[in-house]
């Protein structure tokens, strides 16, 4: 404690210089924490987005994910109702949604366009992932209506000149290879925020789609969990209980999430490294000047019995005091920015390939703060060692004669 007190007093010898070093460290620390917090928020948001879009665990027929289909639903999953009931009984499972991926032509009588559709159980689907579907017009459709109802992507609705209440026709190839058609009514117009998808999107009742494709199979069963971290455990349990099925997790299918994470890890990792290098040089410079100014004092302390490593330790403590106090200041700045952004409602522009922006938020992470603080303190200690090691071993007579 006494040595730490001496270190603190030595830091205060040249307050302006110490303050400058602390300011550099504080700004750098805040930059790393805000940038890292933004990345963590992005990971979290994209993780939940991916998990809610596909389900936490996705179950399909063994060849579904790898094989090409000669006819629709060739690798469809039979007995979905019974399987769904057994999966819903697993602990931590919030819901199981059957889905059918299908495609074909959509027509308003005058004009046709290609669509990419998903057959869903509307009530459960809109309840579980409703916030991801932004209804531009109309509302969620229901199942079991006399004329099947659908929801259209915004751009596709514009192409088809459709609005809620409009009648359209869906044409698709059946499981037998023939063409089939069904008349539908538009109940809602939605946007998922990705123009390329909104241009082709059709959501329809799974029963109506099965009727269109002449099948009783579904493409996949999407399993929604109470907690995302339980994903791997539930997936493992399903694999063990149903070895005949192909089981994927949301992470396996979240290509965008993985790409963003890889990119951000590199960007913010590089930012962290640059920050550490700046800390290293700022402190080495500050303490290097202090060491030069105190050469005679070092000689005196060595003469009266201080070991070189004890001299170095004293400077390392000074580095830790400067680095630690700068890091704490940086953490306070970052925390203030985090709180400010959570209330300010700042919007980021739409990312490439998206039609909507998103809120600029920074996630607070105790782990990130602790790791950054530890890295700054370690870099400070290293800089202090670097600056003082040679001077501590300088011949005493030479150090005492230093002017």
């Amino acid at each position, binding site marked *: 404690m006494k040595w730490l007190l*001496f270190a603190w007093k030595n830091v205060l010898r040249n307050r302006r210089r110490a303050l400058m070093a602390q300011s550099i460290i504080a700004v750098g620390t805040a930059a790393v924490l805000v940038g890292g917090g933004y990345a963590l928020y992005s990971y979290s948001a994209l993780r939940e987005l991916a998990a809610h879009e596909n389900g936490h665990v996705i179950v399909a027929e063994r060849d579904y994910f790898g094989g090409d289909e000669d006819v629709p639903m060739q690798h469809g999953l039979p007995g979905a109702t019974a399987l769904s009931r057994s999966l819903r009984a697993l602990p931590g499972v919030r819901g199981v949604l059957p889905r059918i991926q299908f495609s074909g032509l959509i027509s308003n009588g005058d004009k046709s366009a290609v669509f990419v559709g998903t057959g869903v159980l509307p009530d459960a689907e809109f309840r579980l992932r409703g916030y991801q579907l932004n209804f531009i017009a109309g509302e969620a459709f229901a199942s079991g209506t006399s004329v099947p109802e659908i929801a259209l992507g915004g751009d596709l609705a514009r192409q088809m000149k459709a609005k809620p209440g409009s009648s359209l026709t869906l044409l698709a190839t059946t499981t037998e290879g023939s063409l089939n058609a069904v008349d539908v009514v538009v109940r809602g117009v939605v946007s998922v925020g990705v123009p390329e998808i909104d241009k082709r999107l059709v959501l329809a009742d799974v029963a109506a789609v099965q009727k269109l494709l002449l099948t009783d199979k579904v493409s996949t069963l999407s399993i929604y969990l109470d907690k995302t971290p339980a994903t791997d455990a539930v997936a493992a349990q399903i694999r063990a209980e149903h070895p005949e099925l192909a089981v994927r997790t949301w992470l396996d299918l979240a290509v965008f999430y993985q790409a963003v994470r890889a990119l951000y890890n590199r960007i913010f990792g590089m930012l962290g490294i640059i920050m550490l290098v700046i800390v290293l040089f700022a402190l080495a410079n500050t303490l290097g000047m202090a060491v030069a100014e105190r050469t005679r004092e070092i000689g005196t302390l060595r*003469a*009266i*019995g*201080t070991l*070189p490593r004890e001299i170095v330790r004293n400077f390392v403590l000074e580095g830790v005091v400067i680095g630690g106090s700068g890091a704490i200041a940086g953490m306070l700045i970052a925390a203030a920015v985090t709180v400010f952004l959570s209330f300010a409602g700042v919007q980021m522009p739409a990312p490439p390939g998206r039609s909507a922006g998103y809120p600029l938020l920074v996630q607070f992470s105790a782990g990130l703060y602790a790791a950054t603080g530890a890295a700054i303190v370690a870099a400070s200690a290293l800089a202090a060692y670097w600056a003082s090691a040679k001077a501590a071993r300088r011949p005493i007579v030479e150090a005492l004669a230093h002017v």
Partner: protein
Amino acid sequence: MPIGPEEAHPAGPAATAVRLSKVSKSYGAGSTRVQALRSVDFELRAGELAALTGPSGSGKSTLLNLCGLIDSPDSGEREIAGVAVAGRTETMLTRLRREKIGFVFQGFNLVPVMTVFDNVEYPLLLLGVPAPERDVRVRGMLARVGLGGFDRRVPDALSGGQRQRVAIARALVKSPALVIADEPTGNLDSATAAQIVDLLRELAHERGAAVVVATHDERMTGRCDRVLRLVDGALQ
């Protein structure tokens, strides 16, 4: 505060504090080589105050540095408080200085950010003396050098004479066998200088420490127990 016998150097008043045998030291090489000390034999007993005099360049500082183990000779043997120095590593020499040698410098060389108390306490911290004992010894030492009540001041708030008293207290607080004082009165007026030398002599006698004082001041030498004169690197 009187110094108790338990604080006196364990070697006792009659022991040899420092012994140099045929010590030589030179600087430079070839045509620029300077012989600073020539086969010097020198011995100082515990409790003795010796003045080391001589003209500039006579080798006084070199001799002090060798006695204080902060420089090494080209040849010859050294012994501090009965401990032979030859063959010891730098770490061992540092520990020997830490335990057995105190230093008083012409420029005081106090640590400016430390208080008077901290400066005097520092050698005891290095020795790992427990805090309560440190407190007693530092306060006793400060009282002995006439600086009781000055413990919370920083060196910059003291006069030159007071600073040198702090330096003396720092040198003697650990009860060393030997105190090296290089021109300790060089920055002081005559009256203060006389007081400092008297203080050094008293403490040397009280604590059983040998003190070797390098000085140019002939008025100081009369206050010392012995006077050693160096001329051209040789003791006369």
